[in-house]
């Protein structure tokens, strides 16, 4: 609980530490007429033009300052966002006179990076049931090539706790902007919760065996079929070192395919985003796999934003046929799905059928959510579970309390940290 209070204080300080720059800059009294972003060989006036070089989310943040009083401190943040998104060496901003008196034009200039070296904390989460999970990496980017090496300890996402190293190579421009390539190589040591070990002993035929380590290699290529529609194809080769005195090695070699769609509609004072994806992972004897299974999943996420109000619905379902390794089985009861429930209590071995829906409402940094889901194996009855929660989220910092809706003793689950 000590960590929880420290987290509250930290998040509170982030939320209420306001920028001072707007008070001290004489130009804060002027209204922003337009925002212009320019790079090597391109310029976009965001009041009248659109560009696919900047994501819709960031474009919305940039256009949101048009018509508002100038906030110089916010320009630093937006320049930082542009720099990050465009992998630029530097993004500078300047304020110049607008066409109308008392109005100013904000100009961002993007200077492309030749090379960059970064340190990233992707996740740092405390869950009162699962403990700490975190991952970080160092990356080197030279033109469109990125090499990354990271460390991870995650007890949140899968039935197990994985600790180990991750490595990644990415080429975002494989001859054309429409084609990218990525290769992931990970090596993890695995720890099991006592409830998982006990469930495995009680139901030995329900899921494949435990393992003490696993390595995975995943080359994938992503092609933009039509602008909002992308297709990712590739392979996943996994090696599992079995637990026990007669430890052997098993493999799960699969072909993976994912189709993704994203669309966004901007109206007067609102924005709607729709993301959809469906995935198929097939491991067969043909690929020399010890595990033979097929995993299908599909998800739809819809978000409506207007001013400080954001409503999100996230629906997802998955189905596994055959015998999949524990790391590929579905999990509910973590910091993403069915928050408030303990994964080790409802599905210590994971499940091969799952369905989930989450509705979230945000007002500024404050959030409320309602999760509903079920996880089961084909031989088991379907049990729907529900949870509700409240929290605060600012940028990537999140603080939430989730309560499972059930009779009897109810223990809230507290989550805080950095969540992408």
């Amino acid at each position, binding site marked *: 609980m000590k960590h929880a209070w420290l987290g509250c204080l930290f998040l509170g300080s982030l939320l209420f530490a306001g920028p001072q720059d707007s008070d001290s*800059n004489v*130009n804060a009294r002027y209204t922003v007429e337009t925002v212009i972003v320019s790079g090597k060989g391109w310029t976009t006036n965001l009041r009248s033009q659109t560009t696919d070089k900047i994501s819709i989310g960031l474009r919305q943040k940039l256009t949101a300052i048009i018509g508002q009083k100038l906030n110089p401190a916010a320009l630093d943040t937006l320049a930082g966002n542009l720099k990050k998104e465009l992998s630029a060496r530097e993004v500078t901003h300047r304020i110049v006179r607008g066409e109308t008196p008392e109005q100013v034009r904000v100009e961002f200039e993007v200077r492309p990076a030749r090379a960059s070296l970064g340190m990233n904390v992707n996740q740092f989460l405390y869950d009162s049931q699962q403990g700490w999970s975190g991952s970080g990496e160092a990356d080197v980017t030279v033109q469109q090539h990125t090499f990354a090496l990271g460390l991870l300890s995650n007890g949140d996402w899968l039935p197990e706790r994985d600790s180990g190293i991750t490595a990644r190579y990415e080429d975002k421009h494989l001859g054309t902007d429409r084609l990218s390539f990525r290769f992931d190589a990970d090596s993890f040591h695995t720890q099991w919760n006592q409830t998982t070990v006990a469930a495995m002993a009680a139901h030995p035929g329900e899921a494949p065996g435990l393992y003490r380590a696993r390595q995975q290699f995943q080359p994938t290529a992503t092609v933009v079929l039509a602008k909002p529609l992308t297709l990712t194809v590739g392979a996943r080769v996994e090696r599992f070192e079995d637990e026990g005195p007669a430890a052997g090695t098993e493999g799960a070699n699969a072909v993976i395919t994912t189709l993704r769609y994203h669309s966004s509609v901007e109206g007067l004072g609102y924005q709607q985003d729709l993301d959809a994806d469906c995935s198929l992972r097939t491991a067969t004897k043909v690929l020399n796999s010890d595990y033979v299974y097929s995993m299908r999943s599909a998800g739809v996420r819809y978000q409506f934003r207007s001013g400080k109000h954001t409503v999100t619905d996230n629906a997802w379902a998955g189905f596994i046929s055959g015998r999949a390794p524990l790391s590929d089985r579905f999990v509910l009861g973590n910091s993403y799905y069915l928050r408030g429930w303990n994964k080790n209590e409802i599905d210590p071995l994971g499940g091969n059928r799952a369905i989930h829906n989450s509705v979230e409402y945000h007002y500024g940094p404050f959030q409320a959510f309602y999760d509903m889901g079920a996880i089961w194996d084909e031989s088991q009855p379907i049990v729907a579970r529900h949870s509700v929660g409240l929290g605060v989220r600012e940028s990537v910092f999140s603080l939430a309390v989730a309560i499972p809706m059930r009779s009897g003793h109810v223990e809230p689950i507290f989550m805080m940290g950095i969540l992408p």
Partner: protein
Amino acid sequence: MAEPFRGLQISRRRWLLAGLATPLFPARAADSLIVTFDGDNLHVSSLGLHFLQGKSLNRLKEGSTVEYVAAIALFRDQFATQFKRSEAHFLVSYDVWGTGDVFEVSTPGPPSRRAMNLSQSATETWCLESVRIAASGIGPDRQFWLQLDLRAVPPKLSSVLGDSGINVNVIEVFTPGADERQTFKAGPLRLADLVRTPPRGRAG
């Protein structure tokens, strides 16, 4: 035969050398500090002192707020043993819709002070007039040396918060923008010798 006396004649080569060397010592001779004493505090001024210049002036004209730090230090000996130090911060901005070059300056406080519609030289004067150091504990006949450091704080590093977590660009961290710093020195000084001005309040 005796070599003819050349008086103050300077050869063309020496003129050329002097011309080349001049940019290496920018306006230092004109920047001699004037130190005054109001009975409580020491104040500094200089007719030739300009710190709104260079990259920081460009940043101002691009609409950014630039923070300047003025630090006065007193030394027992010739700038080796410091015994007193005082620092003042100024936030300067440039009015893009102003008539001519118009600046605004404020101190972070508390108490915060602010001045608007100032010319470039008036802004520099306003800042310098706000810089002072208490002279308490210095005997009227004791010798001391005074050093004034003026620097512009480089722009902040870009935000480390992104949609995918916390991201730090290592190259940016280890190659921050260089401070624009100017140092001015005066001494040896004695309180008894300084020009007395009317009291302007106490400083720490």
